[in-house]
């Protein structure tokens, strides 16, 4: 039987761990709410932008070759892995790392695959197994459109200069607080917009004045839509991170409660056994005296 003091120490350790995990859970829940609001806030912008771009590209000839839609033979691939700076979020980071490695080892086997990491956790691990051309941790300190634009512009430059033939973004998509989906999105070259069924006729209804020309507007809108795409991925990832951490911490708290209850039972049993023993000894002693 483990001694009483040992069990008592373990109970207090488990209880303080429980306090930490439940506090972290509440912090994540609050941050998750904020992150979700942020996703909602950017929706009107991204929807309108996509709508404009789709309407415009539909009326233009399919081959208005923007420098970002050029399809080249794929030799050099850049994988942008979006992870977080902090751990304790369940499989949040390892899923991304697994997917990034899978892309390098299977999908693009035999090609040159480099990584760009956003978030410390991904960088720590990916730099051991591959080339990380750049890492950015600071982006999560202040996640603004401006900061995201800088990264997006860098990616666009890498593509248009021909340093990479394909750029892929891997991130966690926020489905709900308990579920994150690992998404692998092609960032560059731009995939031709898929015509939405039943919407094809809509484009010709309004005769817009275009200032400057349609082509120039599309040229100006494409970089914006790329930036928005990256921004959305980052925001999604942040919300997912908090969701994942919340779930992980919830489970940790549950486990700690279970462990604490088991330990308490063990402690009480041990205590009772000790008391019984003591009584037996006293009774035995008294009987010996009386006898």
């Amino acid at each position: 039987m483990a001694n009483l003091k040992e069990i008592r120490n373990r109970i207090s350790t488990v209880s303080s761990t429980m306090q930490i995990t439940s506090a972290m859970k509440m912090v994540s829940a609050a941050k998750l709410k904020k992150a979700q609001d942020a996703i909602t806030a950017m929706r009107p912008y991204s929807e309108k932008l996509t709508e404009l771009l789709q309407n415009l590209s539909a009326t233009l000839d399919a081959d208005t070759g923007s420098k970002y839609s050029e399809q080249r033979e794929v030799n050099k691939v850049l994988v942008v892995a979006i992870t977080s700076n902090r751990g304790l979020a369940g499989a949040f980071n390892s899923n991304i790392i697994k997917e990034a490695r899978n892309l390098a080892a299977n999908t693009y086997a035999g090609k040159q695959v480099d990584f760009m990491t956003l978030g410390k956790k991904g960088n720590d691990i990916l730099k051991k197994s591959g080339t990380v051309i750049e890492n950015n941790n600071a982006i999560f300190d202040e996640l603004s459109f401006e900061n995201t634009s800088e990264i997006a512009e860098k990616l666009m430059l890498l593509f248009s200069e021909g340093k990479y033939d394909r750029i892929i973004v891997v991130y966690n998509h926020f489905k709900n607080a308990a579920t994150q989906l690992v998404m692998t999105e092609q960032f560059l070259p731009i995939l031709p917009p898929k015509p939405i069924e039943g919407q094809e006729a809509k484009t010709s209804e309004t005769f817009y004045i275009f200032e400057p020309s349609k082509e120039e507007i599309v040229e100006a809108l494409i970089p914006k839509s790329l930036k928005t795409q990256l921004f959305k991925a980052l925001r999604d990832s942040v919300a997912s991170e908090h969701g994942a951490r919340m779930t992980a911490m919830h489970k940790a708290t549950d486990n700690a409660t279970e462990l604490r209850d088991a330990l308490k039972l063990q402690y009480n049993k041990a205590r009772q056994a000790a008391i019984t023993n003591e009584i037996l000894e006293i009774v035995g002693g008294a009987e010996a005296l009386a006898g």
Partner: protein
Amino acid sequence: MYLEIVTPEASLVAGEVESITVPGVEGEFQMLNNHAPIVSVLQEGKVKFKGNPTIAEGFEKKFTQEDGKWVLQISGGTVECNNNRVMVLAD
């Protein structure tokens, strides 16, 4: 006419206005009621509008008053006007 100004981070303005002036890449222009449908790219400059639409909470500081008009500084963007609805996508 109904005006909406949105940025990637938030929706700033929504509501009825009398007129809007935007800094188009080919020169500043104004839109009044029943303006023809237009799509234009904007450059750095000031978006001015007359009227009292709802300005999102926490963003009042971005706006200034000038000759009875609200003024917002933008670094670029896009504007779409159709059917008396104006949507400004500001950066």
